[in-house]
């Protein structure tokens, strides 16, 4: 039995899904079109981000509010990984703690969009936004 989403919760849910959709498209563009090889931590964040498009998208199509519950663990995991990645990128945590194998380094200065915004920060902002929007959607549903 699906739990119907309340009118007030639809918009934040939609916006959360939109963020995951744009983040996924952006990650694929950077990796597949611009040819930037994702590092190990980027891959873990992708693993958390990509399914959100489908989980939240299906929830939206069916107006199924339970998708929030299924999405939150992924969001939380991605948020933690992105935060950790940011700390490594800024040199607050040493990269040696993470086995970054062959390929791109997680602390590489190349991981920036237009030479300005570091990709890990972008990822962390996206996960934060999704988390906040889902939280808003959940609160509105309960009341």
């Amino acid at each position, binding site marked *: 039995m699906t739990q119907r989403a309340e009118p007030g919760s*639809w918009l934040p849910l*939609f916006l959360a*899904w*939109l963020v995951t*959709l*744009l983040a996924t*498209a952006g990650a*694929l*563009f950077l990796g597949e*079109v*611009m040819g930037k090889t994702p590092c190990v931590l980027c891959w873990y964040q992708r693993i958390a981000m990509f399914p959100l498009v489908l989980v939240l*998208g299906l929830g*939206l*199509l069916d*107006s199924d509010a339970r998708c929030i519950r299924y999405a939150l663990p992924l969001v939380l995991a991605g948020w933690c990984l992105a935060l950790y990645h940011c700390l490594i990128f800024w040199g607050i945590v040493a990269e040696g703690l993470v086995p970054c194998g062959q390929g791109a380094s997680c602390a590489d200065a190349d991981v920036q969009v237009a030479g300005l915004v570091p990709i890990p920060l972008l990822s962390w902002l996206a996960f934060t936004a999704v988390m906040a929007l889902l939280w808003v959607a959940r609160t509105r549903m309960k009341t």
Partner: protein
Amino acid sequence: MNRKWVVLGTAAAVVVAFVAGVVVYRDRAAQQAAQVAAEALQRDREALVRAHSPVFGNPAAKVTIVEFFDPSCETCRAFYPLVKELVNSSFGQVRLVLRYAPLHKGSDTAVKILEAARLQGKYWEALERTLAAQPQWAAHHNPQPELIWDVIADTGLDMAKARADAASPAVDQLLRQDIADMQALKVKQTPGFFVNGTPLRDFGQLQLKALVAEELRKVKAP
């Protein structure tokens, strides 16, 4: 129902934007690659002909033979009459630009002596004498390029000035530039020929003649 279309429409819009982004990015990347290639070609052209190099023949000739040349090289010596003939028989259509590729021991000294002679307008005379006497001074196991001074002594050079010029930083700089260009153009053997920028890939006198003839045809029938 309406909301379903909002979701599906948004997804479709993002997919379309993604594809458009791919097209734009590929196009821009291709343009950049073309620009990089053009710049590399331009660099090669600059490396091929420098203003400081000796030119034989009409300076405004449409076909330029660039020869990376080593005064100690027997094959350069053997090619010299042919190259000279190619220029002389072209009625001003072909010129020769000599670049130095001092790959043998003592060649650098020989080049500096020739350049000193050039400063006094005796370059081609000195070059021909130097090549004629090559068996005497350029034995590869025991090169004695200083002997060239004796070979060119009676050309009317101011020998004291020539010896000072041969040791001057300007001549040294010219030689260094030629060596750098030789490496940039990946010339590994002498003589190394380029005709209007096209390297002589299949080495030989007939092949050089053919390449010059081909370039002459190109400039005559554009």
